[in-house]
């Protein structure tokens, strides 16, 4: 009998270390026992399962590749990838929460923050006691953040922030927002600020009526003469390199996360095809359905190998942003295609919340767009191979 649950056609497990497998299995059990039972309801109601924020932190899921001295687990990037994979096998919203907390909030504080900022925030963010968000995108500037209009003006007391950010994951519930703003006219003047919840002039209303990532909070951040103390500027970075290096961390995680989503929809389709009888036989015995399953597992296996190799490069300190772009672009598009094929195998049941397929498919529409749209990553790869930038 076939094992439908363990999606490992190419025996990638033989390449993982004992700890990596332990971490993967831990995240997998957590998702099966704590996330899957509640996720469809959360999705339907448009809420994040906030009761899971602390337990995930206590297990060490946030910022797990950062060092132990800041309360993190000090894992390698393969283990980090496997966690995002398993979380997204549950739901892209859960993985998004973890990606933002880990890669977009903890990472910049770790990489560019002062020692006081690190001590203040990292342990609390690691346990999930505090929640963070990352504000780069603006209502009028998405793919080209270099033209952002949010401004920070130096004052006697520190900095005065004005502007707005849009589509910010966790904004409404965040205790701290990592906000990128211009301190002058050009891109080089971009700096990162830690804006704390409750700061005067700062509000973060939730964006409602989403059809995607419904089990995830998305918000607008509004700054009106918002006063930020001097000690809340990230001292270690200037220019677009700051936010882009965070995005690199997150995109790496997404390249793995997308595999998890594809595993979920592929598994659902495979199991369904084996049990659904039409014309007196399981539909898995028809060549057309087998072709779909064969293509799905082939694409998943390729994506797994790509992610694994990327992880090895990252651990060796050799990975390039353009390589990460290729993996994010390929793996997310792969997962979306797998979800769409899976949906057809499930027939009418494919659109039902009794099965995870449509939820994953809808979620992936956001994942395809955030962290650099599919098109933008195409242009990054194009620029890499031709040496010619085609953005403008």
């Amino acid at each position, binding site marked *: *009998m076939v*094992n439908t*649950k*363990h999606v490992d056609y190419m025996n990638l497990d033989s390449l993982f270390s*004992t*700890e990596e*497998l*332990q*971490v993967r299995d*831990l995240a997998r*059990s*957590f998702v099966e026992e704590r996330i899957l039972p509640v996720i469809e309801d959360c999705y339907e109601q448009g809420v994040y399962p906030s009761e899971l924020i602390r337990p995930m932190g*206590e*297990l*060490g*899921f946030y910022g*797990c590749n950062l060092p*132990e001295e800041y309360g993190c*687990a*000090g*894992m390698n990037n393969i*283990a980090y990838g496997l966690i995002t994979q398993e979380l997204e096998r549950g739901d892209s919203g859960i993985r998004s929460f973890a990606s933002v907390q880990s890669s977009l909030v903890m990472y910049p504080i770790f990489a560019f923050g002062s020692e006081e900022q690190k001590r203040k925030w990292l342990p609390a963010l690691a346990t999930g006691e505090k929640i963070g968000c990352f504000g780069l995108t603006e209502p009028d500037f998405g793919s080209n953040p270099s033209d952002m209009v949010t401004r920070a003006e130096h004052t006697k007391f520190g900095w005065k922030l004005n502007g707005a950010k849009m589509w910010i994951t966790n904004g409404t519930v965040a205790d701290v927002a990592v906000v990128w703003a211009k301190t002058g006219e050009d891109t080089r003047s971009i700096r990162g600020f830690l804006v704390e919840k409750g700061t005067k002039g700062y509000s973060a209303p939730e964006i409602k009526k989403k059809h995607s990532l419904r089990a995830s909070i998305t918000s607008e951040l509004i700054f009106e003469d918002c006063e930020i103390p001097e000690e809340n500027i990230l001292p270690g970075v200037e220019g677009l390199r700051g936010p882009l290096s965070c995005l690199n961390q997150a995109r790496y995680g997404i390249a793995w996360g997308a595999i998890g989503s594809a595993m979920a929809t592929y598994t659902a389709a495979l199991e369904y095809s084996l049990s659904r009888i039409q014309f007196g036989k399981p539909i898995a015995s028809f060549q057309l359905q087998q072709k779909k399953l064969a293509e799905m597992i082939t694409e998943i296996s390729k994506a797994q190998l790509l992610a694994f190799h990327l992880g090895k490069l990252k651990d060796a300190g050799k990975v390039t942003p353009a390589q990460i772009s290729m993996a994010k672009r390929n793996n997310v598009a792969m997962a979306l295609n797998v979800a769409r094929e899976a949906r057809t195998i499930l027939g009418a049941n494919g659109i039902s919340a009794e099965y995870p397929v449509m939820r994953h498919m809808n979620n992936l529409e956001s994942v395809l767009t955030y962290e650099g749209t599919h098109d933008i990553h195409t242009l990054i790869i194009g620029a890499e191979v031709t040496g010619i930038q085609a953005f403008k």
Partner: protein
Amino acid sequence: MKIAVCIKAVPETDTRIRIAADGRSIERSDIKFIVSPYDEFALEEAIKLKESKGGSVTVIGLGGDEVPAILRDGLARGADDAVHVSSAGVATDDPLIVGKVLAAALKQLGPDLIFFGKHGVGGDNQQVHAVVAEKLGMPQVTVVTKLDVTDGKVRAEREIEGGIEVVEAPLPAIIGAQKGLNEPRYPKLQGIMQAKKKPLATKSVADLGLSADQVGDAAAGIRITGLSLPPARQAGRRIDGDAGQQVAELVNALQNEAKVI
């Protein structure tokens, strides 16, 4: 207090078992092994005791290549060290032999308290902890759902038909853990990292002072001679029609086909 926990690697509970070519063992190649579920309660109780009263926890597993990973899991959850007792040359079909080998390993360790799961999932013999108790001359309490350890004795509650029995025994003692004893924790990532640095010793039967004629096939009282899978279940039947027809047909089926009423 020195605590030992014996844990067994068993096939994941939803594994579809295939019988190996020899007809008397299971196909192991594509099986994922986990800690036997009742052993998780044993391990959790041991770690909780260590956390509240101090001391150390050693996890012990008898078996082959599948064992080190589950021992690492025990270390990740908070055990201090681990002993892998190799099953090479051990007639593991016979719980008496398994008990003999584990007793020898435990004797070297000299713990004050030894935990087992109430039984190993899969084999379901429920014998090993009793055998070990006998070999070591220790009292044992099994199917334990609540445990207190004070003043050199254990006070255990155990499930019996229609009620709860309270049992006391002096240390050193052996406990067989039942579901409900506690809520096993997940290992933490930090724990998984720390586990890498904790000692995991491997011992052969010779290291335990046992010889082949004591624990090998020749010494075994029983031997598994055959395994077969249960017959495939027949497909269910759906009863259609309006409520009246459905009731009539269901009653008819229960009386005349299933013959249960």
